[in-house]
């Protein structure tokens, strides 16, 4: 526990007995051992914000004084809600009650004494002691702050820096899912084992010395397309990444841009879940890229895309009638087209709406196809009771040949202000379940730095334990042209399907 788990220079995970970093070659002993805490490295600011704007990525984890009151004044700002969504939008008063003013609520990490609180809307980019040593900083501001100064020429802040997983408490560097190929300072050979540093990697992808499997391409994937970015990670407890995503940008017939993000989570208890999620994400993405440019309504297109994804997953199943455990996955997708935000989903992968103005209320846009969600929706159980049940996370809807009754959910919104859509698998939202939690983890500059924000979110899940594969897409939504155009509730929903009604008995499928 109390040894450096990451290279002091590039944060590449280390093994016991290493004297040099296997990636950047820096001597391990030369650097002072970084201070470690075995706590989740939640973004807790300790220094006042630099005067410059959004240099850093971490927002307050704790409500600032005035947060509650400001939030209380902010009415739900989404318009065109799908029917039934109102139940989900917590009233501002409840928010105030939960977070009473400046008192620091119990934090997951031992929080330092509440820091001086900056004016609303400012962000923190300053180094955080909790992020010392093995943790990766994706945005290291010029000021070194209290963390050890890295040697010259080290790849701090490289966007493709190996991500997360090297935190204290993660004994095993191998489990970090570090993409070896993309390591910024990977040696010329580039084929040294990431686990023992001593062996070369054979053609099968295993170390010739210690036998450890080397990270695969899918273990950690990142993609950025200007208007959208996504990151997928194997996590710390699963041996492969069964999540998949697709992001794309296209143009509508009127020439305006449209952005697509699809995230899928393979069902572990089914066979070949990794293939299922890849097939579904690819098929849904292609369907949208085909439908949107020819002018299909985004919600219509999303509905058809989910059907296309289902067909692609079904095609993976062996043609044996009644075959068990056909490949299966969940799907959640978001399309931003002009002033319209469309989401669609099957299963328990989610989309969240986080306004750029953090005073406004964040929202969850999807309703899980899960046992717990259905119990709550049917009024049979309270939320706390339902989610405490062992069956809570069993999903009741999925894509796959043995799907009970495929029911694509879609909804469209016309937000009157700018924000980002966080499209993610439960590997992330297990560590930031409520929309408020998600908003607090999401960097405030998410709209301008979607890739960085996605990295931060994945890092949050890994710091929390990384018990599942983690995949997140961050889709910025620009405010409509007319700033004052808060013409509310124009019911732009073409076919918003309400939550599953009273379907509490469909066969449940456990999801790992």
């Amino acid at each position: 526990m109390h040894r450096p788990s990451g290279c002091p220079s590039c944060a590449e995970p280390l093994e016991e007995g290493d004297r040099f970093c296997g990636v950047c070659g820096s001597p391990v002993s030369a650097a002072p051992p970084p201070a470690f805490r075995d706590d989740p490295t939640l973004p807790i600011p300790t220094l006042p914000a630099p005067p410059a704007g959004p240099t850093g990525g971490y927002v307050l984890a704790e409500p600032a004084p005035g947060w509650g009151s400001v939030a209380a004044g902010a009415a739900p700002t989404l318009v065109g809600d799908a029917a039934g969504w109102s139940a989900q939008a917590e009233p501002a008063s409840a928010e105030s009650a939960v977070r009473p003013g400046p008192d620091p609520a119990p934090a997951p990490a031992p929080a330092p004494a509440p820091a001086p609180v900056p004016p609303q809307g400012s962000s923190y980019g300053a180094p955080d002691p909790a992020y010392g040593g093995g943790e990766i900083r994706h945005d290291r501001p010029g000021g070194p702050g209290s963390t050890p100064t890295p040697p010259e020429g080290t790849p701090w802040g490289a966007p493709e820096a190996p991500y997360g997983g090297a935190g204290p408490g993660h004994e095993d560097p191998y489990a970090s899912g570090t993409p070896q190929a993309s390591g910024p300072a990977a040696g010329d050979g580039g084929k040294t084992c990431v686990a023992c540093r001593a062996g070369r990697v054979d053609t099968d992808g295993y170390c010739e010395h210690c036998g450890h499997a080397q990270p695969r391409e899918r273990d950690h994937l990142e993609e950025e397309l200007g208007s959208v970015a996504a990151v997928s990670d194997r996590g710390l407890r699963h041996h492969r990444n069964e999540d998949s995503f697709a992001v794309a940008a296209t143009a509508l017939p009127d020439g305006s841009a449209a952005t697509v993000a699809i995230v899928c989570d393979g069902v572990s208890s089914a066979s070949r879940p990794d293939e299922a999620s890849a097939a579904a994400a690819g098929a849904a993405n292609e369907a949208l890229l085909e439908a949107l440019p020819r002018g299909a309504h985004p919600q219509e297109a999303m509905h058809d895309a989910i059907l296309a994804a289902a067909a692609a997953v079904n095609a993976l199943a062996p043609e044996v009638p009644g075959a068990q455990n056909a490949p299966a996955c969940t799907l959640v997708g978001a399309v931003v087209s002009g002033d319209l935000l469309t989401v669609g989903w099957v299963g328990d992968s989610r989309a969240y709406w986080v306004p750029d103005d953090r005073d406004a209320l964040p929202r969850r846009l999807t309703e899980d196809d899960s046992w717990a969600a259905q119990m709550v929706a049917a009024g049979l159980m309270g939320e706390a009771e339902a989610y405490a049940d062992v069956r809570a996370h069993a999903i009741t809807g999925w894509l796959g040949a043995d799907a009970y009754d495929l029911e694509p959910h879609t909804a469209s919104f016309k937000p009157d202000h700018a924000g980002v859509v966080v499209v993610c698998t439960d590997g992330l939202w297990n560590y930031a379940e409520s929309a408020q939690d998600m908003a607090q983890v999401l960097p405030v500059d998410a709209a301008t730095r979607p890739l960085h924000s996605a990295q931060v979110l994945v890092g949050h899940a890994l710091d929390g334990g990384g018990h599942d594969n983690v995949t997140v897409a961050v889709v910025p939504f620009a405010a409509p042209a007319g700033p004052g155009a808060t013409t509310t509730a124009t019911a732009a929903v073409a076919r918003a399907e309400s939550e599953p009604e009273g379907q509490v008995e469909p066969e449940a499928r456990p999801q790992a």
Partner: protein
Amino acid sequence: MANFAKPSAPRFSVEVYQNEFLPEGGRDVHAIVTVTSTGGAAATRAAARGSAAVVIMVDCSGSMEYPPDKMRGAREATAAAIDTLRDGTAFAVIAGTHVAKEVYPGQGRLAVADPATRAQAKEALRGLGAGGGTAIGTWLRLADGLLRQSSAAIRHGILLTDGRNEHEDPAVLRATLEACAGRFTCDARGVGTDWEVKEVTGIASALLGSADIVADPAHLTEDFTLMMENVMGKEVADVALRLWTPVGVEVQYVKQVAPTVQDLSDRRTEAGPRAGDYPTGSWGDESREYHVCVRVPAASVGQEMLAARATLLLPGAPGEPPATLAQGLVRAVWTDDLAASTAINPQVAHYTGQAELAKAIQQGLEARKLGDVDGATAKLGRAVQLASASGNADTAKLLAKVVDVVDAAAGTVRLKAKVADADEMTLETRSIQTVRVKKS
């Protein structure tokens, strides 16, 4: 997979059957490695001149005349085996007693099979008579000396005995077997019922050949012909199963489990860092299965490692690296999914059962010899149960000659009061024979 250069050589393939999932803290990894060689025999049957050398060792001790049909059967069987020799094969015949004597061609040479030499050899067999003792080590040493002159890849012996190795210190035979191991392969047969099962199976096991009983001398001809056909079908010799393991991984055992159970763990020769070679002898068109068990260092959930790499190697010419024929990977993946980590691979389960079956028979017969009725009944009952459950019908039949089966599924048996020696020896000799996994 195979990158073996000779186009006529068989192609090898390796398949690994295992449940790679381990629970947190799990360390033992079991795998069945199936090696199959195909496509070689037909192509080379005519062409492979000088590719094989065979020495037939015939017991000519005095007991072979009691009854006299043993000696007659041995002569006829040897003649039949000579007729089965492919043209161009180097061969010799040795008469074995308390000393070894060359019968044909003599003067420390090997003959090359053609119609003339075959006729001469059969003529020489007429001179075989019984008389003297039994010192099998001397026969093997002479065979070794003859075979060493041959440059043939396939070097093989066929040994027939009817009695115990009475005129030789067991240690001498052991030392001889150790010296000969790897130099040639040898099938061993016991004729009649006066020989020692452990001696004959020990010879075959050490020299990577088959062992069997020919209780009735009249069946010797048929058996020798089959044996020689088998030898003529061999294409490549001295194939080794190389097991590479990463740092920290211990090999628990390596066993051949089909067609017979042979523990190869002690036969390992080191071959570079963390690699060891297990001899498999010569191969024709055939398939064999190996049970590999390794112990890996404990790792946390979500990790994956290569637990072992099984490679089939053909030794190269002197000074050249061995050729890799095929390879398979044994993996370990730690998971917190209990359904995955507790599943037992059907192949592993089957061959674990077959190995237990062989052991139960051997222990049961041993207990029976010692008069331990309860122990024998328990062990042989377990054997009946295993044979029945795994579909090993041949072994089940042999068991039924030694015990009365009351309930095969439950393993309830009674020892037979009277058991023919031949039946007991047949069961003991063939106890190591296994069946493949049933295709469901």
